């Protein structure tokens, strides 16, 4: 024994992942998701979030590049990797005329390693009406059912496409708690796309921003909240050329800027002799909105 931990494969590894559609190209995307990580895939509609998740789940085959899940190549002909994956998408394919319970029994019959006990506990926790037909379930309850079906076999990688859409605040919090608990042991990973930016603060360790099919930024949540600041100051004269500024508002000598490099901006302001400098923190969802709204050419920090 040399005392070294055996090297674990990434939960998901995207290597040059490329998918082309008429008028749109996703990628090439290089991305590694380590076990124990919750990565939020953030981007406007049509940015390629769902396609990325579909490629990792093996529902869509890429035109170039590839995907691995815990070291196993994602390929439809070798589907064993799916035992490690739980996927909740916009559609789940349930038998709509059957009850939620019967659908779960069917999924259990297909999935080795299914735990009826785990599924029952999750259903109770989400207050899922198991005896109602799927066609009679609300959007939120269908999402809960999809979550139970995705978690019942204890996958190590969870792929979630807008998992909290349509959920009421109480269940949303419960779902986020469950996802948080799943990753606590450091062996599981969650990759989820979301429009609900407040979820990011609650759950994500890392953020990946997709824009027009390109991964424009991959960064840690804490790094992001440390680097971005809203700064207001007073400065005489017209010259105000600052680095890292993504938004600048000015009324005569009063300025308010949003910077993605707070340290550099504050240093420059001191050199320029700015007065009444007030620096305020921004929440992660505020920063995400800025990145998405403005489409800044942000630097790729990690992959």
């Amino acid at each position, binding site marked *: 024994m040399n005392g070294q931990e055996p090297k674990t494969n990434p939960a998901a590894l995207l290597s040059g992942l490329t998918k082309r559609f*008429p008028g749109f190209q996703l990628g090439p995307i290089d991305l590694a998701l380590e076990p124990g990580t919750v990565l939020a895939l953030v981007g406007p509609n049509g940015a390629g979030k769902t396609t990325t998740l*579909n490629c990792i*789940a*093996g*529902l*869509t*085959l890429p035109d170039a590049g590839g995907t691995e899940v815990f070291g196993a190549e994602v390929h*439809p*002909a070798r*589907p*064993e*990797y*799916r*035992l490690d994956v*739980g*996927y909740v*998408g916009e*559609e*789940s*394919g*349930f*038998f*709509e*005329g*059957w009850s939620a319970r019967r659908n779960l029994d*069917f*999924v259990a*019959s*297909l*999935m*080795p390693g299914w735990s009826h006990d785990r599924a029952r506990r999750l259903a109770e926790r989400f207050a899922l009406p198991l005896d109602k037909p799927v066609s009679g379930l609300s959007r939120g309850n269908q999402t809960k059912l999809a979550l139970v*079906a*995705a978690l019942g076999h204890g996958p190590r990688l969870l792929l979630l496409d807008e998992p909290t859409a349509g959920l009421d605040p109480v269940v949303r919090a419960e779902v986020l708690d469950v996802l948080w608990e799943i990753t606590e042991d450091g062996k599981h990973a969650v990759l989820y796309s979301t429009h609900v930016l407040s979820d990011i603060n609650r759950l994500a360790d890392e953020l990946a921003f997709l824009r027009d099919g390109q991964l424009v930024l991959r960064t840690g949540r804490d790094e992001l909240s440390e680097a971005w600041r809203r700064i207001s100051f007073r400065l005489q004269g017209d010259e105000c050329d600052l680095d890292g500024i993504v938004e600048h508002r000015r009324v005569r000598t009063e300025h308010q800027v949003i910077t993605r490099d707070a340290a550099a901006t504050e240093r420059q302001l001191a050199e320029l002799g700015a007065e009444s400098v007030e620096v305020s923190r921004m929440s992660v969802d505020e920063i995400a909105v800025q990145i998405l709204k403005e489409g800044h050419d942000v630097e790729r920090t990690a992959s």
Partner: protein
Amino acid sequence: MWNALRAELIYFRGYMFGGLGIATGVSGLLVALTWFKRGADGIPTFLPGMFPIIAGMVVSFIALALRSEERRARLLLAAPMTPRQLAGVMILLPVCLVAWGVLGGALLLGLTSLLAGQFELGDLTMVARFAGQFLVYALMGPLVQEAVAARRQGRSRAGLAGWANLVAVLLLLTSVYWLDGRPGLNAGLQLLVAAFMVVPTLVLYQGRTDFTR
């Protein structure tokens, strides 16, 4: 794959029993009217054997459309199933539904023969011929679906090949139809045409680049 097929058959058995019920009702009405008008000798005994097979075919179209609407492949793809197994479920489902129809048809044929007090082997071969014909129609559904999917996924040549196969099947079916005088041979050839259709459907499905729809 067998679990999935079994579940689909259980899911659609309500439709199938409904279809068989309608077929039995229509057959019964026809037999009763014929009996009333021409007596027991005038009953076309093969006819009641045909309606349940038509019911099987119609239910197979309904099943295919509903599966597609409910995006069943997405549910099955949560499990470690290969595209070949998924295609197997898609192809075997109409085969099983038509087979149920054949079974129902054979039962009705037997019942009608008993009522009419006569049994002719020709009726059985006639029912076999209908079975072959309607099985081919039922299997056209998955082939058309895959040809459309191939075009949608930008696999134009595969899509064209799918449509070409469909045209070939229709031509074969027409040729077989003209062998009217030999229903036994006719039935056998139609079953061969049905088997011929399975191959391109399977190949097209395995070539899919997207399983979300």
